[in-house]
């Protein structure tokens, strides 16, 4: 059967992925709540995963999907550790406002 790309074309997927990525960037810069920032990071990672899968179909190669597999594993690990850090910050500072994390000010 025809690849879905024949019907949709890969440019659309590139645009979609770019838009999603930029929304993620926007979210990181816009919000003050640390957890929302995390979520935005997840959005970014997902955008990249989407693109990988699109190109895996484009090249008819499974290696793209293998990379997505590993990307997901890393994302999971990162969220676990990141949230643990966040909890510990919450315990010390009482809030998870990003603007309060200023001790590295030079």
């Amino acid at each position: 059967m025809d690849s879905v790309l024949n019907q949709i074309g890969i440019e659309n997927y590139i645009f979609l992925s770019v838009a999603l990525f930029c929304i993620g960037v926007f979210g990181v810069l816009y919000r003050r709540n640390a957890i929302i920032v995390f979520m935005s990071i997840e959005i970014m990672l997902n955008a990249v995963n989407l693109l990988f899968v699109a190109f895996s179909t484009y090249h008819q190669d499974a290696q793209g999907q293998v990379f997505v597999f590993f990307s997901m594993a890393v994302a999971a690990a990162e969220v676990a550790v990141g949230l643990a850090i966040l909890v510990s910050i919450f315990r010390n500072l009482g809030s998870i406002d990003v603007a309060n994390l200023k001790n590295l000010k030079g």
Partner: protein
Amino acid sequence: MDINLALVLLLAPFLGFLTNIFLGKSLGKNVSGAIGTIAVAISFAMSLFFFLQINQTGQPISIHLFDWIAISNFNIEFGFLLDQLSLLWLLFVTGIGSLIHLYSISYMHDDENMHKFFAYLNLFVFFMITLVMGSNLLIMFIGWEGVGLCSYLLIGFWYKNQNYNDAAKKAFIMNRIGDLGFLVGIFIIGALFNTLDFATLKATILAGNNLNAYWIGAAALALFIGASGKSAQIPLYTWLPDAMAGPTPVSALIHAATMVTAGIFMITRLNFLFDLAPAIQNIIAVIGAITALVAATIGLVQNDIKKVLAYSTVSQLGLMFLALGLGAYEIAVFHVITHAFFKACLFLGSGSVIHALHHEQDMRKMGGLRKAMPITFITMLISSLAISGIFPLSGFWSKDEILMTAYHQSPVLWVIGSIASILTAFYMFRLMYLTFFKEFRGSEEQKHHLHESPALITFPLIVLAILAAIGGLISLPGHSWLNHYLEPLFSKAHEAHHLGTTEYMLMAIATVGALIGIGIAYAKYIKQAQVPEEDEKITGFSKVLYNKYYVDEVYDAIIVKPINLLSRFFRDYVETALAAIVFGFGKAANELSYQGKKIQNGSIGFYLFAFVIGFCAIVSYLILAQKKF
């Protein structure tokens, strides 16, 4: 053997300097004085030895220590040349030097810095020996600068008085102005002949092929400027009277007998060069004569005993330069030697008087010291007669030779020289009458303490007076040992004066002139018993003379003040601007870092923002800015 003895000659005073400057305080006054004197005496013994040797063999001794500067074919060695001229100079420098050292042991005994005094005196003798013994112009220049330095140190010896320091500075700076001329001369000679060595220069110049007369004249003029700085000719003479601020032995040694003769030494050394520039020789003669006259007129009305002697020195140096300008180098050397004897004796005698009156130097407060200080009186009388040119003392012979040569070459210069000599006789005897005759005009207390000076002071006086009396024997007209001795040095053999009618007439005129001068002084100060007036009461032309023709004030206005203004301008504007620029760099860096510090504000959002912007920038440069892809 010769090298070792020459090194001993050179280094003995230097060792004396080192010992006295480092250990002098702990050695005590007498020991440091003895060390200083013995050092110079050793040099005298060595120079005597070499003198006898060269008198016998007639061969100059050339000593080469090491190659100093070697640039392609321009070589300057570090070496010494002991020929007739340098040995003659060494003899009287070290000889009179040791006598003055002996004198200073007693004269400076009350001073707590006596060891420093002897150290500086030794250093001076060391540099003077370097100057005289150098085998090329550069070593002579080392000595030249060194004696200038020691002159500064010694004039300002009593440093607590600001006026003395100013006098020392004035001497040094005026010397330096002359030294600039000397350096220019050295450069020109080096460029012309590719060597600075005296022997080589003499050979090259006497060989005489394509010599650029213009540049040789320029070199001669520049060297003469250097000599006039050192030997106090117009216009660089005003430092010498001010230099009387130093202790009297300093005045005797440096400013009468040795340092001021360095200019004459240099010109005599380079006589072959000056012989090629007759125009410059004319200039030298004219300036010498004018200096002699002007200084003599100023000396007529001075009341400080040392200032009179200082102006007398300037005047006699003018006569020596007159001789040099006329090409009569041996006669100039002769006058240098006789002048050294009687002028040193006069200065030391005045020192003895000053010492007896507890540092009173104004002649208006002296008088009648004849009875109290007989030895001083007699020695100074002999020297005054010598300087006035009375037969048969040494001054008569040397001065007469100069005047005779002047008469044969330029009668105008003869007239000027003769007038200067008559004035010399006048003011010297004015000094003698005011100091030693009539009644004592000082305070009662000084009168009680009047006595003759101790032996260490009177002994050098006696020796120098004897030398001043019989010194003329070395160069009698028609049978001159000095001319014969110095003959190998000069290319143009100077015809001895045949004693004919003209010469006897000139001698008679000179003697009569001197007697007239002495007579007028006698009439004024003994018969009429005049005493010079107080400073405020001097009027008219005397006032102009008393203020030295206001030359110092003129120099101050046209040279010193503009330079001060210039330096103040630089300090106020240029230096602040430069400081602002230099500090401005620091301030800019500081400000930059202070502003730059604000980027690190610790907020993560800002860091991420910068991250994104940076990423966009890099990517847009790498990919979008490429024309091709």
